[in-house]
């Protein structure tokens, strides 16, 4: 009860302080902050298009943030989610374009499975290197992201190229239906939500989840009670990769309809950001992912319908995020308590 209230207060203060700083900046360039914020709000919520944009942004972010969080629960810092999104996407595109002999529903499932397998396999590499030889997964995943981007880039401008002016694959034969047109929100969002719910249940209610949490909090203990911490670490990285792969698959099947070169730039790092702010708590992370999606969609709206330059919009968003990371910025209660105590002490002396 108390915690909830103070959490709410904290969020409120975060929003207020960021809004105020933003307003000052907007005033400085001679625009009307109220109009600008209206535009931000409209951009994120108004009508099918606005809210659809938020939903469309939310879908991959939800998955990438959960992907990061799952790995973090087992003690891994998986910067590689972005690469996994790319590879999942390209796998889905390959299957979606070439396996047309399959009936549609099977093809759809195959796309998802293919994406999960390829992305999961990719995540296995840093996981094994870390678990068995102590190679920092932060280092390898940062490097491997770039490799993943170039691999897909090669494929769509070479062997898988559609031969169009853009580097992209042919269109896939199966799509996730879009709703809330003209935005690109699609039923992938429901798939994502289901997956997140499953992951949360998995983490807190199943044996595998228990193992992940044990390994993440104390690998030596895990080994001692007979949980193979290395194996669990690797498995959770694979799971993380597979979730990233699903994000890629949804983007390809639901948003673009083909694999577009470079489509996932920033998806991984934004997801990571959401998870980090929530300290990889699987229940809180989705809310932060949603918060970031609102900001992103709102920012697009603000650029689209006001004269506030994009750079300023991005600045305000960044300030929002920085303020949001500071957990104890608004713990007034504690501070006041401390002060009172101090005064008491002084009075005594």
């Amino acid at each position, binding site marked *: 009860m108390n915690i909830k209230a103070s959490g709410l207060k904290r969020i409120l203060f975060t929003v207020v302080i960021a809004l105020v700083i933003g307003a000052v900046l907007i005033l400085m360039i001679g625009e009307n902050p109220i109009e600008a914020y209206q535009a931000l709000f409209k951009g994120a919520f108004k009508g099918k298009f606005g809210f659809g944009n938020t939903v469309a942004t939310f879908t991959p972010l939800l998955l990438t943030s959960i992907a990061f969080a799952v790995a973090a629960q087992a003690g891994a810092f998986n910067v590689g989610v972005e690469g996994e999104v790319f590879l999942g996407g390209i796998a889905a595109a390959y299957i979606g374009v070439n396996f047309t002999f399959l009936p549609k529903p099977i093809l759809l499932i195959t796309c998802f499975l293919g994406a999960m397998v390829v992305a999961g396999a990719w995540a296995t590499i840093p996981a094994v290197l870390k678990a068995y030889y102590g190679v920092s997964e932060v280092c390898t995943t940062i490097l491997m992201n770039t490799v993943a981007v*170039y691999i897909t880039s090669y494929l769509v401008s070479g062997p898988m*190229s559609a031969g169009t*002016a853009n*580097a992209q694959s042919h269109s896939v034969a199966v799509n996730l239906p879009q709703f809330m047109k003209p935005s690109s929100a699609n039923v992938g969002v429901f798939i994502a939500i289901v997956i997140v719910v499953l992951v949360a249940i998995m983490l807190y209610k199943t044996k595998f989840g228990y193992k992940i949490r044990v390994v993440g909090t104390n690998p030596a203990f895990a080994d001692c009670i007979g949980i193979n911490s290395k194996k669990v670490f690797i498995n959770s990285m694979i799971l993380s990769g597979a979730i990233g792969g699903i994000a890629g698959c949804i983007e390809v099947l639901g*948003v673009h309809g083909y694999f577009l070169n470079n489509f996932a730039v*920033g998806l991984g790092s934004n997801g990571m950001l959401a998870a980090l702010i929530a300290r990889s708590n699987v229940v809180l992370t989705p809310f932060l992912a949603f918060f970031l999606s609102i900001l992103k969609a709102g920012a697009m709206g603000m650029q*689209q319908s006001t004269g506030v330059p994009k750079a300023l919009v991005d600045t305000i968003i960044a300030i929002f995020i920085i303020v949001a990371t500071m957990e104890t910025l608004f713990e007034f209660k504690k501070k006041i308590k401390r002060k009172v105590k101090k005064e008491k002490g002084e009075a005594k002396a």
Partner: protein
Amino acid sequence: GSDSDSGASGGSSDEKGKDKIRVCIVYTGNLGDKSYNDSCNEGAQRAVEELGVEVKSLEGATAEEWESNLVSACEEGYDLIIGASSNIADYITEHGPNYPETKFAVIDTTVDLDNVQSISFAQNQGSFLAGAAAAMFTTKTDIEGVNKEKIIGWVGGMDIPVLHDFYTGYEQGAKYIDPDIKILQAFAGTWTDPLKGKELTLAQYEQGADIVMNVASGTGPGILEAAKEAGKYAIGVDLNQDNDQPGSILTSMVKRVDNACYLVIESVVNDTFAGGTTQYLSLEEGGVSLTDFAVIKESLGDKFPQDIVDKCDELAEKIIAGEIVVENYEGFGPEAQ
């Protein structure tokens, strides 16, 4: 600053905007690349000044933003929406039919819809001339920094089809002058990393090239800077970049995106907008060309190889006359799509 002085303000509620033609340009990338996007913006700003239209620029770095920007422009009811690059084409194909009253234009590719005007460029032809100029230049050993080896360079941004169309022409032009010439090709893998461009360019100079063509958008400034720093030469692209590193840039292969942009806005103003057609802007239409070599001429003084200019003029005429057929990369050219 494009955003602040574009003068676009707010939605349709704006009173004074009513009688003006309202144009929105959706970029795939940001302004300030000193190349393609800026060229487009130049045309737009000229239209603002000369035709009194109102222009809104929407920048975006990711595919998600591109689509959202395009759709929001549709929803806002602009008179004309220009998709500044081929990346927008698919979104126009998808959403264009839902906004039959809105006029669209797309640059660098073709969209087959009644309310869309497509504009493409014969970048291969311009590149042909650039390649020929480079091939002649690389043996002018009396110019400082030029060696006798017949090696020229070419640095592109991302490895995407349209750049191969550039390269095809460049290679053909160079080989036309000298079949034995060696061309070093490299892609930076990014549009936005001038330092990478610089490194690649220096690597080509270190391998014996003395002139490198830049086809790298935001990565390009690094290429031009490398030329200056290494005491070698470069060829600019899209905009006239001769003055970016004066004396180090032989010429620029100008792709008149600005003209394309201006002309399509003009057609809307004059009510001559020709939806459903494709304009192919080649050498003949002035869609692509080399600059006039004036900057380098001033810097080289009497060492300036006038024969290159003459030869280029001659080749241009031959291309226009159809005596030389410049090849296209697959998927490009007047008949593409």
